[in-house]
Structures are given as structure tokens and as C-alpha cells.
């Protein structure tokens, strides 16, 4: 299947931003000493490299031409010693740089990860996991690469360039000027041709990710395609993308393949020019052969600095784009956070108060209007109403996932905003429609509810939640390792696990948010029979459509448009003529009545 529109491409390059750059340097600053040592060691390496052509020239002119074998031996030994030093410097700096780089990376990753976990759902809702993941991995890597490799090699190559120019000019000005002739074409290649190649490969990457997305879709939608006999059409469309991918690849290759030969050709032309003029000078007795050899040696070293400079420019721009993405997260404000010095919420009995709460997700469009509800400790409250009525908002507010615009929510009389956030959430457990299962053992997954729980406590919780039986049947029981996202469990089993997890946390308040919506009949039976035990002695909020679940409630609250429209026990509400609850009940149970009649007859 074709992917008509690729998600808007992540930006590849951004303008230089001094503020971001300073903040980035801030991450390197603690390591300035190590980085300085690395720079010095790189400098040693550069000097050793620069010495080679000079030594060659010196050897030819001073010792070889004159037959000074002892001098030659000393020179050789000296050069050998220099290389040993270069070897050592290279070894040390490689290890050091990698350590520093990894430390910087680690602290950048930690800052990001820690910050992300202070953020509210407003951050997560609009963002696919994959995009955040990319920032924590790729973007952070790009930044680190700039800070360590990029900046340092830029400095070293600049040093190289200046050193070569100074050396050549001081050796012989006119020949130096001839050598410099090689620079403009090299600069052209580095700064003109290379960006075009880069663009071409960018197109290649875009096309490849479209192609891979189509492949992915072909694989994940395979069942539908087979059922609807769409394979041929799919293959035809896939081939189109495959073909385009082939073409952009070849176009990029054509450009890229020009590059190496052109650099080489430029080098050959430079060599010819230097040799020609050098031969002329030597013929007139104005220069030695050794110096010509040295010049030829340096000629090949122009390319490195020029190439690095053009690369750095590009690296800087793409690092800025990464910095923008990383700092966007770091600067994102947390939605709710504990007030500084807020006291811990003591162990509560479970009294919940909504006091004239107005709340919404978009400014000017409140979902709850002056919502007031008092729930006594140990009471079971069912929230009923159409989609979008505000049930989920009420539940989110209890755990303080959001703060209300107006009014207050109190637990045992404590305003949520005035106590420590974590101490609130530790006393509330939520079971959702679909509950996340972490990779790891069944045991670890249940224990997520209370990290210090013992094995016995975990098993006891599983038994309470009717999860024990299926867990025991797993290959390694509680120690069975679950696949990513619990793929080796059924939806119902994951749900039972979530109930066990919630029970283990021994919460004062238990929230069931459509917890029985998607499960199969078998699991539903297990949950219904466990539910009484689970709700015992806790304040419970139940959002559900299934009457079997709702009927347990001490009080049913019918919500519409963010307001309470009916409230009472099951019997009271059924007695309301023309009531909403009664209408809902009737549509769901007319079948049941039919069944009852049959049974009665």
C-alpha cells in the first residue's frame, strides 16, 4: 500500500542559535580539563603528522644527497621516536575522549528522561513514543558528537591548515603559491558538490523510510489484504515505491561517484604543477630535490582540513536542529507538580470531595462545570454517562493528573495541591481499559504496585484478583518472563494482572476506568466474582457500561455535559420515570427480560 503522506519530516538543519550553543557547552564544561588534555594530545598527533613530509625532504637533501649515513640513522631514529610518542598520544586521547563523551551523553539523557517524567499528559497525548525515543537517542548522540568530535577536530584541522600554509610559505614562497592553486577547486568540491550529494542522500533516506513504512504496513495489514484478495494490487503499488527508491539511489550514486575521482584529479593536477615548477627551479639550481619531495608530501594534506571545515558547517546546522528538539522537551513545563515543601499526605480513610470544580482541556471549553460531589470513605460510586460527559476527567482529577481551573478536590479534607504528589498517587490505584504490561516476569509486573512487597504478598494479591490460577499454568509460573507489552498474554489475562497489581498497592481509593470493557466472557466472570473482595473497605470509583459492574455501586452518578443529572441507588434511579439511567438500563436488559420470561415459563 502506498503511504500517501509521510509524516512531516523531522527538520534536518536549523540556523545557528547562540543560546542553544551555550547551553550545550554547559554540558561539556564540567569536563573542560579532560577535554583540554585531549586537545593537547591531538595537537601532538597533528605535529607528528606534519613532520613526515618535512623529514622526508630533510633526509633527501641533508643526509642522502651527501651520503651522511650516521645522520640518516639518527634522523630515522628520531622520527621513529616521534611516532612512538604519536602512538601513545593517540591511544590515550581516544580512551579519554570516549569516556568524556559517554559521560556527557549520559547526563544529557538523564536530564531529558527525568524531565520527561515530570511532564503531564498534555505532553504525551500529542506525541508518538517513537518521536520521543528518537530525541533521547539520535538527537542526543548528534549533540554529543558535535561537542566532542566535531569541535575538537575542527580546532585541530584549523591548526593543520595554518601550520601547512606557514610551513610552505616559509620554505619557499613562489612554490607555496603554486601549491595553493589546489585549494580553490578543493573548496569548490567540498562546499558545492558535497551539499548536493548530501541533498541527494537525504532524498534517498526519505524514500527509503517511505518504502519501509509501506513494507511495515504490508506486514501488519497482511490479514486484511489476504481476506480482501488485495495482494496483487498491493505488490503493484509497492513496486512503484521500490522503483522510485532504486532511481533516487542511482541518482545519488552518480553524484557521489563523481566526488572521489574529482578530488583525486585535482590532486594529480596539483602534483603536476608543483613538479613542473619544481623541476624548473631545480634545473636552475634554485631548489633542492628534497624540498620538492616535502612540497609534494604537504600537497596531499590540504584536503583534510577543507573537508573537515565543510563537514563541520553541516554538523553544526544539524546539531542545531537536534538541540531545538532536545531543548523543546527540557523547556516544556510540567503540568502538575508538588508545591515546594508540600507535606506528605498521611494515610487517608478515603473521603473524596469535589468542591465546585470547573475543568477542561482547552481554554474556554470546560468539560466540568462547578462539579460538586462528596464521597464518603468506603463508598462505591459508579459514574455513568455518554462519551465525553466528563467521567474520565473526574477520575483524572482524583489522582491529580490535572489541576482544576476553579474549585478544589480534597482527600480527607486535604487540598490535593497542598500535599506531595507522589504521596497522593501511592494511595490511589487505577485499573484502565487496557493496562500496560512491562517486559520482565509476572512477579515483577504485579510487584510494580508495591516495590517492597514480598513474594507471599504478591501471590496473595494475585489470588484475590483471581489471577493466580492462570499464572500457575504459565510455563514458569510467577517467574515466567513476559514478552514486550505482554504479547504472550491475552487481553483478559493482562487485565487480571492489572487487578492484582492494583490490589497489592493496597490503595485507600480504587478507580476502575472501563476496566471491564473489552474482556472476554471468561475473564469477566473471574473479575466479577473477585470484585466484591477488591472493593471491600476502599472508596471506589467505577466507570463502566456493563450493568453487572455498575449494580454493585452504593451510589450511581449520571453525568451529562459535565454536570450531574441524576444520582441515587440502582433502585432509586430505576424508579425515576423518564430517567436517563432507566432508559440506559432498559436498552441493555430487554434481552435479559426476554430470557427471564423464558426461564420463568
Amino acid at each position, binding site marked *: 500500500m502506498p503511504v500517501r503522506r509521510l509524516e512531516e519530516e523531522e527538520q534536518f538543519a536549523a540556523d545557528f542559535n547562540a543560546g542553544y550553543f551555550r547551553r550545550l557547552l554547559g554540558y561539556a564544561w564540567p569536563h573542560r580539563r579532560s577535554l583540554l588534555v585531549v586537545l593537547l594530545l591531538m595537537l601532538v598527533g597533528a605535529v607528528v603528522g606534519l613532520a613526515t613530509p618535512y623529514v622526508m625532504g630533510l633526509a633527501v637533501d641533508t643526509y642522502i644527497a651527501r651520503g651522511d649515513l650516521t645522520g640518516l640513522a639518527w634522523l630515522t631514529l628520531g622520527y621513529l621516536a616521534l611516532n612512538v610518542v604519536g602512538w601513545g598520544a593517540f591511544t590515550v586521547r581516544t*580512551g579519554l575522549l570516549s569516556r568524556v563523551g559517554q559521560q556527557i551523553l549520559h547526563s544529557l539523557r538523564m536530564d531529558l528522561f527525568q524531565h520527561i517524567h515530570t511532564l503531564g499528559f498534555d505532553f504525551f497525548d500529542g506525541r508518538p513514543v517513537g518521536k520521543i525515543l528518537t530525541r533521547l537517542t539520535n538527537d542526543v548522540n548528534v549533540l554529543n558528537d558535535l561537542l566532542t568530535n566535531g569541535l575538537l577536530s575542527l580546532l585541530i584541522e584549523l591548526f593543520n591548515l595554518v601550520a601547512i600554509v606557514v610551513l610552505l610559505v616559509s620554505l619557499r614562497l613562489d612554490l607555496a603559491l603554486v601549491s595553493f592553486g589546489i585549494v580553490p577547486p578543493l573548496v569548490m568540491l567540498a562546499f558545492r558538490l558535497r551539499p548536493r550529494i548530501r541533498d541527494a542522500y537525504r532524498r534517498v533516506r526519505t524514500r527509503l523510510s517511505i518504502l519501509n513504512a509501506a513494507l511495515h504496513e504490508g506486514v501488519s495489514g497482511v490479514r*486484511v489484504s*489476504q481476506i480482501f*484478495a488485495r495482494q496483487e494490487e498491493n505488490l503493484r503499488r509497492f513496486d512503484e515505491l521500490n522503483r522510485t527508491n532504486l532511481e533516487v539511489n542511482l541518482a545519488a550514486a552518480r553524484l557521489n561517484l563523481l566526488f572521489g575521482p574529482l578530488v583525486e584529479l585535482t590532486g594529480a593536477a596539483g602534483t603536476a604543477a608543483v613538479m613542473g615548477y619544481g623541476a624548473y627551479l*631545480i634545473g636552475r639550481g634554485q631548489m633542492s630535490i628534497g624540498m620538492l619531495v616535502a612540497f609534494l608530501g604537504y600537497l596531499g594534506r590540504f584536503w583534510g582540513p577543507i573537508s573537515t571545515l565543510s563537514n563541520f558547517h553541516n554538523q553544526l546546522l544539524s546539531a542545531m536542529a537536534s538541540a531545538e528538539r532536545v531543548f523543546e522537551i527540557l523547556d516544556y513545563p510540567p503540568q502538575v507538580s508538588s508545591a515546594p515543601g508540600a507535606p506528605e499526605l498521611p494515610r487517608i480513610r478515603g473521603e473524596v470531595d469535589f468542591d465546585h470544580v470547573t475543568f477542561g482541556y482547552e481554554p474556554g471549553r470546560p468539560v466540568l462545570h462547578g462539579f460538586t460531589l462528596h464521597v464518603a470513605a468506603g463508598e462505591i460510586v459508579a459514574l455513568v454517562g455518554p462519551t465525553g460527559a466528563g467521567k474520565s476527567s473526574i477520575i483524572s482529577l482524583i489522582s491529580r493528573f490535572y489541576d482544576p481551573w476553579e474549585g478544589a478536590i480534597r482527600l480527607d479534607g486535604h487540598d490535593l495541591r497542598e500535599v506531595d504528589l507522589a504521596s497522593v498517587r501511592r494511595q490511589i490505584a487505577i485499573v484502565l481499559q487496557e493496562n500496560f504490561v512491562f517486559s520482565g516476569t509476572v512477579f515483577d509486573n504485579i510487584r510494580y504496585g508495591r516495590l517492597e512487597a514480598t513474594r507471599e504478598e504478591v501471590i496473595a494479591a494475585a489470588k484475590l484478583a483471581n489471577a493466580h490460577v492462570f499464572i500457575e499454568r504459565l510455563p514458569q509460573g510467577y517467574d515466567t518472563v513476559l514478552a514486550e507489552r505482554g504479547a504472550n498474554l491475552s487481553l483478559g489475562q493482562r487485565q487480571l494482572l492489572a487487578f492484582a497489581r492494583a490490589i497489592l498497592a493496597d490503595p485507600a481509593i480504587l478507580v476502575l476506568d472501563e476496566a471491564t470493557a473489552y474482556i472476554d466472557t*471468561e475473564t469477566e466472570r473471574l473479575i466479577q466474582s473477585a470484585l466484591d473482595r477488591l472493593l471491600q473497605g476502599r472508596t471506589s470509583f467505577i466507570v463502566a457500561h*456493563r450493568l453487572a459492574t455498575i449494580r454493585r455501586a452504593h451510589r450511581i452518578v449520571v453525568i451529562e455535559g459535565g454536570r450531574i443529572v441524576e444520582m441515587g441507588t440502582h433502585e432509586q434511579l430505576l424508579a425515576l420515570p423518564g430517567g436517563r439511567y432507566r432508559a440506559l438500563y432498559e436498552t441493555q436488559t430487554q434481552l435479559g427480560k426476554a430470557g427471564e420470561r423464558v426461564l420463568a415459563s
Partner: protein
Amino acid sequence: MHSLRLIFRFVAPYRARLYGALLLLLASTGLAMVGPEIQRLIVDRAIIGGKTRLLFPLLTALVAAALGRGVALFFRGYLQEWVGQRVVYDLRHRLYAHLQELSPAYYARTYTGEIMSRVTGDVERVRQFVTSGVVDLLNSVLTFGFVSIILFRMNWQLTLVTLSISPLLAITVLRFDRRIRPAWRAIERQAGVLSTVIQESLAGVRVVKAFAREPFEVERFRRESEGFADTQVRAARIWAHSFPLIEFLTALSWVLLVGVGGRQVALGRMTVGELVAFNGYLWSLIWPIRNLGWLVNLFEQASTASDRILEILNAPVDIQEPPHPVRLRVKGEIRFENVSFKYDEEAYGDHALRSPGLFGFNLTVHPGERVAVVGPTGCGKTTVVHLLLRLYDPQTGRILIDGVDLRELDLVTYRRQVGVVQQETFLFSTSIKENIAFGRLSATDEEIREAARLAQADRFIERLPDGYETVVGERGVGLSGGERQRVAIARALLMNPAILVLDDPTSSVDAETEAEIQAALRRLMQGRTTLIVSQRVSAVRDADWIVVLDEGRIVQQGRHEELINQPGVYRRLFAPQLGLPAGEEAAACR
């Protein structure tokens, strides 16, 4: 090397181009040898020998050789690239075509991520190998051989001296390669762990927040992030111990050249020009050896990659087209005759254990009839659907459509006449219009709109940003479960199928939406043979006939009123939904 056969099979059609690349390789390597030789002539003849009239032709030759080599390099590279790209084009085509035919059980036991890494990463490794592997290997061998011969003829003592470094260099390079690979694998593994931690803590953020487990997650991340940094530093250490040594050994060759060669020149056993030429050739003696590690790597990677690709291509396709397919205009009679099916445990592992299959299944559905199949989870309901759609063939017994064995039908024509609404509807990342027309490409806009209207999907579609042109699916606008199901119903309506399969279409929507969808489903079922599989009593109670499965066998059948009044699986399953007592305790099905 055995496993590289796959690659050779795919390269074979393009071998003429590879031969061309090899010819150009000879040319470019040969021309590379010319440069230093010309430099020697310039120094010895033109400069020292004083024959200045030779200078200009020699310099021209130098540039011409570089030009010729450049041209050869370009075309050689292009031919290699062309063959490499073409081979992966063919490979992708084959993979995609094959993946589309593999059975649901194959997908049940294979992770999508695993398949994706093969069709992306492994295919890329094959491309690298085809593009550069063989030619680069030959290039290294040729260059090293040519240069050795030239240098031996020029000055065999000096050649032996400089070559004395080569074994040491080769050992270092290969040892580095051997040691760095486990380190890289460790990095890859740890990167995977780290990314799992990130993904889980983000995807599970609701659970994390609900239990206030942020500190726990941060701690977990810190541990893995540090572990990741450690693996990187360890790899860097291996690199730091090898690469500078490789550089040093390279420099050592130069030291030997200057020391020993300089001595020979000083003693008059060698000319200055020869020393310069030697200097020019030296790199050609070193890079092939430095390349060894990369080449070994390339070969090994390509070999494991092609193994992994072959695993997909060799996965058996369960369904074969008949030799003389019957193109049937389906009226809608379905007959299962003593059908048994069991998932092959060897091929499907876990999946086979979880699904019992089907035993001695008999069922006749007359045209226009509505039959429901119910039963506890994992008791063979889905197998019935899969067999009817011929995603598998039964091991014994047969399935007849209007009296013709399903195995003799032309599969495409048959499936086009069967409409299916599944438990979860997969939407492709394309316009909602195309998603509705999925089963009938030729549908007009009016027909699509009409189908959407009948499925009660028109109102929400018109509210979407681009109406019927809105891109949905993974890369487009997300639709709710209820909206997806309505698209699926429209999709089925548009096909106007003779047979309709409803595979638990309301199990993943809430009760309100279910009631709305039921209305659209009733419209869809009108006048069609319908097979319903469901967990909801509301979906099955109106069926003309209900079959109750348990452990792959029929345990009860009849109409709703009869079944609900009998003790048995049916009452046990559905009584709670009707607010009735379930009767006896249920025995769990596996």
C-alpha cells in the same frame, strides 16, 4: 559461504554488468600503478638527468592517468551500485510478495519487528556486499599483487624490508576485527535494552504515573544508560588499543623506507626517483591490508543476513492455487463436511499450543441464513473463520461452497465475494475513501459515499479535516474503535458479498457504540449468508442457528431460546450478560 548462494542467485541475471565492473577494475588499478612510476621518471630523467623536454609530456601523462583512472572509477562504481540496487529491488519484491502470502499462524509466532529488521537491515547488508564485497576484495588483492611485483622489480631488498611490517599489520587488523565485534554486539544489545526501557516507560506512562513510579523508572533508566555508556567505552578501549597501533605500524613502514631506502640511495644502489616512487607506492601496499577487517566483516555479515532473509523466503505458504481454478459466482451455500484442522506444532510452536484447532466439524448454512459460532476464548471459533476464508486448508474433510470444494476455487474471485468485518479493523495509511474501496477498487465516489451512509459512517467522515480524502491509519488521523468498525462495515457493504463473516466485530467497542453498530450490521446482513463469531449475546441471539464450540468440538447447537434454557456452555457464557444466574460453575477452556 554456503549461505551466500541466495545472493549469487539474485546477482546471476546481472553478471554481465559485474564482469564489466571487473574489467574497469583492472583498468583503474593499472592506472593507479602508473602515477608513482611517472613521478620516478620525472625525478630521475627530467630533473636529475636534465632531459627537460621529457618534463611536459610526463606531467601531461600524470594528469591523463588520473583522468583515465577517474573515468574508470566512476563507471566501475556505477555498475557496482546499479547491480547492488537492482538486486535489493528484486529481493524486496520477492520478500513483499512472499510475506503477503504467509499464513496468520506465521505472523502469530513471528514479531513484526523481527520481520522488519530482516527486510530492512539484512537487505541493506546484502546490498553492501553486492555493491562492494567481491569487487573490493579483488581490488585489494590486485593492488597488493601489482604493487609488490613492481616494487620487487625495482628494488627487492627494500621491498622485503617494507613488506616485513605487513604480517604484523594484518595480525593487528584481524585481531582488532575479532575483538571489536563482540563489543559492537554488546552495544547493540544494550541499545536495545535502553530503548525498551524508554519505550515502556513512555507507552506505559499512565501506569507509571498512577503508581507514582517515576523514581523507579528513572533509576531503571539510569542503570541501563550507564550500562550503555560502559559498553561504548569498552568498545572505544579496544579501538584505542588497536587503531593507533595500526597507524603506528603504517608510520613504521615509512620510517623503514626513509632509513633503509635513504641508505641505499646514499650508497648509490638506488636512485632518488625510485625512492620517491616507492614513497608513492607504499600506501597501495598498506591499504589492502588495513581493509582486511572490513572485508571479512562484509562477508560474514552478508552471510548471516542472507540466512535470515532465506528464513522468510523459505517459510512455507500453506495455500496453493489449484491447477484449474473454478471461477464461481457464489450464491451462498456453505457446507463443512467432517472438517478437522490442527496447527502444526513444529511450524507454529506456541500458537499451536494455544489453539486447539477443530475436530470433526459439520455445518451447513443455506443461502441467506445467519449462523453464529460461539464458545469460550481459544476454543476454535477463529479457526472456523480462517478455514472458510481459506487462509488454511483442513487436514481432513472438506469445505464446499455452493457444492464446490473450496480448494478448487479461484481464490481471488472467491474472496472478492466474501465480506469480512473483523474484531479490529486495520486501516492503511491512505485516504478513508481508498480504505472503504479496499475490496473493490473500481467503486465510484457515489458508491463509496452510499456505502458510508448505509454504514452510518458518513457523518463522522464529513467532519474529518479533508472529508473522504482524509488520510487515516498509522500515519494519518486516528479513528476511534467504533469509527473503524463503521469503515469496515462500509468496506464490506461496497463489495456486495454473497457471504458475510462477522468475526466478533463489536468486541472492542463500548456498549453505546455497540448498539449503534448493531443497526448498521443488521443492514449489512440483509439477504446474505452470514457467519457470526461473537462473545456478545446481543450479536448472536437473532441467529437462525447457533453452534457452540468447546475445545474444538461442537458441544451444543440450536436457537437462542433453546440454548439459554439448557444447562451447558452457552448458558454459562451468556447468562451473566443477560443478568441471569449462570447455573453451574464454568470449567475454564485451557
